[in-house]
């Protein structure tokens, strides 16, 4: 596939991610921050996000499986996850964190478990999508094509 087609594909894919709400303008901001001095900014931040989120999701699963559930701790984790996801523009993950917090405040265990599942689901979705996105970007830069401006 040549550069032009790859570029077109990347643009389409990006548009799809935005229109389906997976990403929001914060992601655009991240892209704008990437320049010559910081060429892999987005990838670095997103990898950081993946690591952090996986850690947080594990902690959440562990906390929710305890006998005595510490809702404060869970709330703190969810808040962190919300913060991270909003910083990278992972819109859907952020949204599901918001409803997670509501259930946490209401100390509703079933609701929390449900939300955890939802968050995990959204996270794995965005992970896949972003990995595809980076893959496309990499292939584009490999063929020498210029990346589309954010």
């Amino acid at each position, binding site marked *: 596939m040549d550069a032009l087609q790859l570029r077109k594909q990347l643009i389409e894919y990006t*548009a799809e991610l*935005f229109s389906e709400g997976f990403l*929001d303008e914060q992601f655009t901001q991240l892209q704008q*921050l990437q320049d010559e001095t*910081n060429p892999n900014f987005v990838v670095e931040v997103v990898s950081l996000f993946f690591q952090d989120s996986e850690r947080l999701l594990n902690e959440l699963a562990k906390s929710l499986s305890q006998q005595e559930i510490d809702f404060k701790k869970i709330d703190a984790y969810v808040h962190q996850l919300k*913060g991270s*996801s*909003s910083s990278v523009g992972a819109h859907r993950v952020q949204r599901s964190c918001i409803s997670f917090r509501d259930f946490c405040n209401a100390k509703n265990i079933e609701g929390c478990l449900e939300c955890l599942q939802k968050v995990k689901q959204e996270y794995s979705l965005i992970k896949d999508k972003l990995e595809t996105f980076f893959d496309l970007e990499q292939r584009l830069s490999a063929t020498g094509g210029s990346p589309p*401006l954010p």
Partner: protein
Amino acid sequence: MECCFDPQWPADELLMKYQYISDFFIALAYFSIPLELIYFVKKSAVFPYRWVLVQFGAFIVLCGATHLINLWTFTTHTRTVAIVMTTAKVFTAAVSCATALMLVHIIPDLLSVKTRELFLKNKAAELDREMGLIRTQEETGRHVRMLTHEIRSTLDRHTILKTTLVELGRTLALEECALWMPTRTGLELQLSYSLRQQNPVGYTVPIHLPVINQVFGTSRAVKISPNSPVARLRPLAGKYMPGEVVAVRVPLLHLSNFRINDWPELSTKRYALMVLMLPSDSARQWHVHELELVEVVADQVAVALSHAAILEESMRARDLLMEQNVALDLARREAETAIRARNDFLAVMNHEMRTPMHAIIALSSLLQETELTPEQRLMVETIMKSSSLLATLINDVLDLSRLEDGSLQLDIGTLNLRSVFNEVMCLIKPVASVKKLNIVLNLAEDFPEYAVGDEKRLMQIILNVVGNGVKFSKEGSISITASVAKAELLRDTRTPEFFPVPGDNNFYLRVQVKDTGSGISPQDIPKLFTKFAQNQSPALKNSGGSGLGLAICKRFVNLMDGHIWIESEGLGKGCTATFIVKLGIPEKMGDTKFPLIGQSAAKRVQTSFPGLKVLLVDDNSVSRAVTKGLLLHLGCEVTTVSSREECLRVVSEDHRLVIMDMCVSGVDSYDIAVQVQDRFTKRYERPLIVALTGNTDKLTKENCMRVGMDGVIVKPVSIDKMRTVLSDLLEHRVLF
């Protein structure tokens, strides 16, 4: 010679013997009587006439002596005997005369004693009788009190009446006691309660019988004939003589008629009839005190009944109120649910609408920067224009709903009035020149330069009004006049509900926009400010506009304690829109701590901040990385720490700025700000402290201000925002 007196007839010895014996017994009796008298008088303590007794005793003794001496005279007796006899007789005569004379005095006295005794006995009998009467009355009184107590101890109508009958029956030992109540129609009396019959049913008597009228006509108890229809409750067994019957009226008082000491005598009052029958064949009669008892009881019953009626009414009213309360509560909850639903809907829709809008706008602007053919470029521009219009519409709708909720608060700050108007002119001039309209701005000489108010909304109002002028004018000119409203002009008779009160700290800004456009017919003017009401004139149907603009303007103007109105002389004659809003007078400019960073101000914004040392505090690694990248992009030198303690350790006077992410991670971020400030003794040495938070509410802002922070940045932060923030911070050293 001895004188011997011979008796006359020596032969009658029998006669002499009897005489002899009789005299002897007389003497005996005469001697024993005083003994008896003495004996009995001694026994009795009271005998006033002792000396009379003595006299009498002497008389009797002498009489006895005489008769005794007489015994010797039957045979021949000596002269001594004769002398003794004579002496005795003389003495006897004297004493007896004296006694006789005495008795004349004494006997009346004795007789009067007797009469007095009789009199006293009569009196005692009378007193006994009266005592008996009083006792009876007291008994009656007790019965009445007990009856009243029983009657008044309950507030239930049936219990009252039943108890009355039972107690009356018991007290007066009645055979039958019945109560007749008037029916609904008031034309008949119905037997409602009876002593002997448990469930009286079916007995009715027309109310206008003469005997009933008689009873109703007086408040006393009236004796009636046992044969009258109200008294004939039981089938009469032939041989029994029915007991006397008494009837009394019981007034059924209406609450409004109830006066304590004054029974009103109204002819339209309702009465019930109480009938009491003495046991048949007992020959008992109704005594006065019994009748009085009955009357008193009847009055008490009336009182008790009215109390019961009051209670019934109040309970009914209370039940009604409770029902209404429940209904109102339900309605309120439904209304609240509806409002909440609407708010939720709007919030969600707002977000749902905004997100794709942003995507469209973002991507269209991205698209514009790519290589496009002219047609494509035109298409993209149209897309951008339409989407901005749509975005504005969405904002308007959200604003309006928030305005109606009352949840919209004005963003008060200091603003530069002149620059506001200038900006409006800048924005509107291009559009006007396209339509070849002339726009003139007149600011009065005393027009203040600065004021305190909500800049964004004020500009929105002016833009909307001027924009309408431009929209609806095809040719001619638009003139905008702005001035400070004088007190006299404020009292406009056309707007009686508007009471401006200029004070020391505020003034009223008056803006008038005159256009020479199509005008508005007078009957359409009131509809102008209603939501979604479009001007139906065909010439203007395609001018666009959602119809919300003026409605929102009006709400904003009201929020600013002002008034807006439109005048027009008719179609084709142009129209004049005027509004007055209240703005604050700013303090001396040197003291203003928090100048508003107006987005319209054409300030020099630094594009890059080389060498600016920033300390970033954030415990979320991802957001820390993002913010760091942002700052690095702007050329700052960034040191990052991930905890509050590290921050305190690392901060030094090299850092010009500390950016703190306000996470809810237990430790109070405000606290750290205070601690950082305490570190540095001289104010100019310490770094500026800025909070980075996702909260947009005023409370967070106020708290930050309170702990002495220099600014608040609301996430999400774009590059431009951060640029502006850093610029302002460095220029003003403050961001609020």
